[in-house]
């Protein structure tokens, strides 16, 4: 009995030692988009209580080739054994850019800066992330001054234990446009809640239960015209993390139900509702450590959904249009570990079809997306 217990503990320790350093958006993206279902450093923005697991590292997310606007840089510093702090610059924001663009066409509110702090209270880790974005432009056109401004404030807080994570987000986006005596404004509030629970079934297998929720509303005003926007998102899923061997991991996730609803309602006017329902979504990720310094990843996703657009015009009959659709995608990823530095790449499989430039004459990039993580203080750097 003692021997079995020791062997189990040793095996679990080996698994923990083998994989936890591997992390980033590119990693979970190249595994079919299973970020919610495994432990990864990119979890921190949904579950800030996990911040304590990712101390002393610098992270660079390079989301598109040669496009600085889509790069994010962050660092995590440990001030003591029970706290961590840091910041991220140029993080993407998920705001309705089409609506924002119609209010403040000269501005963009699609990137923010974040600072965070994580700590420990007894056996519970907690974390808090504050995000801010601002943009402003004033133009004197002679007859009329044009003033545009946009801002975003977001606060995410979370708590985590060994087997559960909870995260709560509240955000306040706003935008305004003034030209002479006329103006238009847009602004509102968003609330997000994410939770997941890990249940260790065997030494190799862990079950994950996940729930996500988001509700946001905003009002747009121009003169006497008003439009109310509402967004509701709900996701329920379950996953399995199966550590086949020390160096091979399989993640299976099933999104049993997903709802993404956008509604716009003009005061005393038309109402439009777009609803996308996922029934279901299947995500698969495989991570294999081929050599101590070389990791290969494979991901697949199959999403079945219905999309419904319903309109309730001020005059005339209501309309409703529903489409059922499915989609399939495969992703490949590579990881290279050099001392404290990890490079994760979303591999462009097109290069395998065309061959290198000397053969095909085609200019194929090797990677579509790259993440870099540097760990301070790791042995071997």
């Amino acid at each position, binding site marked *: 009995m003692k021997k079995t217990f020791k062997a189990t503990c040793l095996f679990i320790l080996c698994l923990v030692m083998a994989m936890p350093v591997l992390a980033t958006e590119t990693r*979970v993206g190249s595994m079919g988009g299973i970020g919610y279902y495994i432990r990864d450093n990119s979890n921190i923005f949904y579950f800030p209580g996990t911040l304590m697991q990712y101390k002393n590292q610098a992270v660079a997310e390079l989301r598109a080739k040669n496009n600085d606007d889509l790069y994010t840089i962050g660092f995590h510093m440990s001030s003591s054994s029970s706290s961590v702090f840091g910041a991220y610059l140029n993080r993407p924001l998920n705001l309705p850019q089409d609506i924002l663009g119609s209010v403040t066409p000269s501005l963009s509110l699609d990137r923010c800066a974040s600072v965070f702090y994580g700590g420990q209270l007894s056996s519970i880790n907690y974390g808090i992330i504050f995000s801010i974005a601002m943009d402003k432009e004033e133009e004197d056109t002679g007859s009329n001054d044009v003033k545009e401004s946009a801002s975003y404030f977001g606060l995410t807080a979370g708590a985590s234990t060994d087997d559960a994570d909870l995260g709560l987000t509240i955000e306040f986006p706003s935008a305004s446009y003034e030209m002479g005596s006329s103006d238009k404004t847009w602004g509102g509030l968003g609330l997000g809640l994410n939770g997941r629970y890990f249940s260790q079934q065997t030494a190799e297998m862990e079950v994950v239960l996940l729930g996500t929720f988001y509700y946001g509303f905003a009002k747009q005003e121009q003169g006497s015209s008003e439009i109310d926007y509402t967004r509701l998102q709900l996701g329920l899923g379950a996953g399995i993390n199966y550590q*086949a061997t020390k160096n091979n991991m399989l993640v299976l996730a099933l999104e049993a139900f997903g709802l993404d609803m*956008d509604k716009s309602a003009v005061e005393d006017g*038309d109402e439009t509702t777009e609803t996308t329902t*996922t029934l279901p*979504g299947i995500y698969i990720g495989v991570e294999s450590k081929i050599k101590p310094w070389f990791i290969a990843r494979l991901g697949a996703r199959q999403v079945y959904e219905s999309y419904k657009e319903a309109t309730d015009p001020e005059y005339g009959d209501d309309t409703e249009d529903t489409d059922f659709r499915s*989609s399939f995608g495969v992703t490949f990823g590579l990881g290279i570990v050099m001392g404290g530095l990890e490079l994760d790449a979303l591999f462009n499989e097109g290069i395998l079809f065309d061959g290198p430039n000397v053969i095909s004459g085609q200019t194929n990039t090797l990677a579509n997306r790259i993440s870099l993580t540097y760990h301070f203080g790791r042995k071997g750097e």
Partner: protein
Amino acid sequence: MRSYRIFFSVIVCLGLIMMSCGVGGSDNPVGVTGGAMDGYGVNSIVEGSAQDSDASGQTGDFVGTWVGSMDIMTPYGFPIEATITLTINADGTYEMTYEALGASETETGTYLITGDQLFIDGELANYTLTGNTLILYLEGETLELTRVNV
């Protein structure tokens, strides 16, 4: 060894299940809790990139290039037919080009759609949108446009 067998059997089975289910279009290949390139889902707070999010709301229905024609009055007091090309962008901007008698003029600006009205840089027009046909009602004039490009 047994673990390897289970591991690869599961992968092969899942692959076969997914292939047998068939695949459809790729309008939105992302779920709410997964499938996005940033590793999460369409509700991602981390990233709402263009490829992951729907062009939602009314604006998305208008985005594209529209072409039509209407009579415009010359400074000499007689009308001529002009070809109008209107490009509506998702970022709230538009570009409108008038072409007549070999000459052209382009204006750019911002627009806002509220209900059944379209504001283009202070100008207000009622509209009807049916598929790829957009009709603007401008101070007694009617401009019918056909979408030629999304």
